[in-house]
């Protein structure tokens, strides 16, 4: 393979890692191109194309040519109360999943970091939600939530707490019900990331703090949390984005119902694009989603980092 390239630069030793600003040599280009071309053609290109589509009246299956319409889609979106309702639901869902999931995952990670007997079992079980297709997770929880044959209502009946209800079809209960599924489904990744963060904190610090008579909570606040904070910040930010953009789980659980109460922005955009064929309009929705999420995250990260300096 490419012995020519190899010979040409024979005298030069390979640049060391970290040698900044060095130009990429020919061998490096040869190594990068196989991935770079598909990325440009099938990812970066479509992304730019998608943004461009947001400024057109593109529709599927239409015979007249597509035309530029300027910011018209965005003006329409501004007045589309259904879209903003789904946006609000998306935010409630993203926060509602991300925050409790973080708290629960942190608890599990702290437990798994201790010398407990059933640790291996918890680790093994935590694989299940991670490895499962989202579609199966949705189907599984529909079986759990099933009003008649589901185990949740049966347990409620067994405990004498009433008859239970049709969780996924109730106007008030649908969103909380899907949020619980979201929390369950993403817990393993968050737990593993936090566990890794915990294992990076030096044990000696813990032991020193314990010798000084610090209780569990003090040790957590003064030793564990400061070390964990960067990981925690990154994982919550990523989880928030992923959750806000999620689709399959809720699509399978409720299809966005009842009455749009669980219609996440991605479900809305999907329907707009592939049920009603409004490509331009759906692309504009995607742009708005990116823009607003970026702003929220920027504020979150900058705010938290500042807070960290002050503390």
């Amino acid at each position, binding site marked *: 393979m490419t012995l020519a390239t190899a010979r040409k630069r024979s005298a030069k030793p390979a640049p060391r890692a970290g040698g900044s600003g060095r130009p990429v040599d020919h061998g490096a280009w040869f190594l990068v191109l196989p991935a770079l071309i598909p990325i440009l053609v099938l990812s970066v290109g479509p992304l730019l194309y998608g943004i461009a589509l947001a400024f057109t009246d593109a529709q599927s299956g239409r015979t007249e040519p597509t035309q530029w319409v300027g910011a018209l889609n965005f003006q329409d979106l501004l007045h589309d109360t259904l879209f903003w309702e789904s946006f609000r639901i998306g935010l409630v869902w993203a926060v509602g999943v991300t925050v409790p999931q973080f708290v629960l995952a942190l608890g599990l990670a702290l437990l798994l970091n201790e010398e407990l007997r059933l640790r291996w079992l918890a680790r093994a079980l935590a694989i299940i939600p991670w490895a499962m297709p989202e579609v199966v997770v949705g189907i599984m929880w529909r079986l759990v939530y099933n009003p008649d044959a589901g185990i949740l209502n049966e347990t409620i009946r067994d405990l004498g707490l009433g008859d239970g209800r049709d969780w996924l079809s109730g106007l008030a209960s649908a969103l909380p019900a899907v949020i619980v599924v979201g929390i369950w489904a993403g817990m393993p990744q968050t737990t593993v990331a936090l566990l890794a963060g915990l294992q990076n904190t030096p044990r000696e610090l813990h032991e020193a703090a314990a010798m000084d008579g610090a209780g569990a909570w003090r040790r957590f606040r003064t030793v564990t949390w400061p070390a964990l904070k960067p990981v925690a910040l990154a994982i919550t930010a990523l989880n928030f984005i992923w959750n806000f953009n999620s689709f399959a789980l809720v699509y399978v659980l409720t299809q966005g119902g009842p009455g749009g109460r669980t219609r996440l922005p991605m479900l809305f955009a999907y329907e707009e694009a592939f049920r009603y064929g409004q490509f331009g309009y759906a*692309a504009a929705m*995607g742009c708005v989603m990116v823009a607003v999420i970026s702003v929220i995250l920027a504020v979150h990260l900058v705010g938290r980092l500042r807070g960290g300096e002050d503390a």
Partner: protein
Amino acid sequence: MRTSRRARAGQYAALLAYLVFLAFPFLWLVSTAFKPARELASLHPTWLPQDPTLDNFRQAFDEQPLLRAALNSLVAALGAAVIAVLIATPMAYVMARHRTRLAKAATGWVVVSQAFPFVLVIIPLFLVLKNLHLINSVAGLVMVYVVWALPFALWMLVGYVRAVPTEMEEAAAVDGAGKVRTLVSITAPLLAPGIVATALFAFITAWNEFFFALVLLKTPEKQTLPVVLTHFLGAEGVADLGPLAAAAFLATIPSLVVFALIQKRITGGMLAGAVKS
């Protein structure tokens, strides 16, 4: 660190609660899959099937083209995993060893690509693939999955490459080996376990993927397993619970097996990528 007996008891109680929370939906799925129709119709379901049966599995295969769907999923996932790793490994190598502008841009893209809602990418991809007559084709889906798998494949592989010491590469360079030769003959063999783990992870994510498959595959004989599974749900969401559970359970087994095999490596790889970048 000493932990009091009371605190220990509390820890075990909490751990038990987690175990129940993590396990019970899956146990319920498996239990439902093996229950005869009579028990599924009962208004007082039991935790375990009283009279276990395989009828649901038989019926699931009768109702939907599950084998065909599994084959499509296998082709899509395998194709995506192999191609993604083949093209990602060299790029990850360059990203890990050179802090060039290109490597920085690629790292930035890996992060940014995680933030975009897929709808912004899928509409143009749909139009492009339509023009190439690759809608409703597993080949078209493979192309999409490759690019979709690249960010985390790069992420994991960069971590693995950084874990390989540079001394041997430097020695090879002094001996006159170029970048490509060094990668192929020195670094790649050391990377092999990481490459395999990355490929298997790409395989699972493609095997599990739903959104792109839903949009791009139109006819049942082309669709992948997750899409076919949703056909069990029926138009009004009224489902035949037994076959639904049976099919869902079957669709999970390959990912569970693969994941169990590589779980340690995946977490290791993601950590390596996360900690050192």
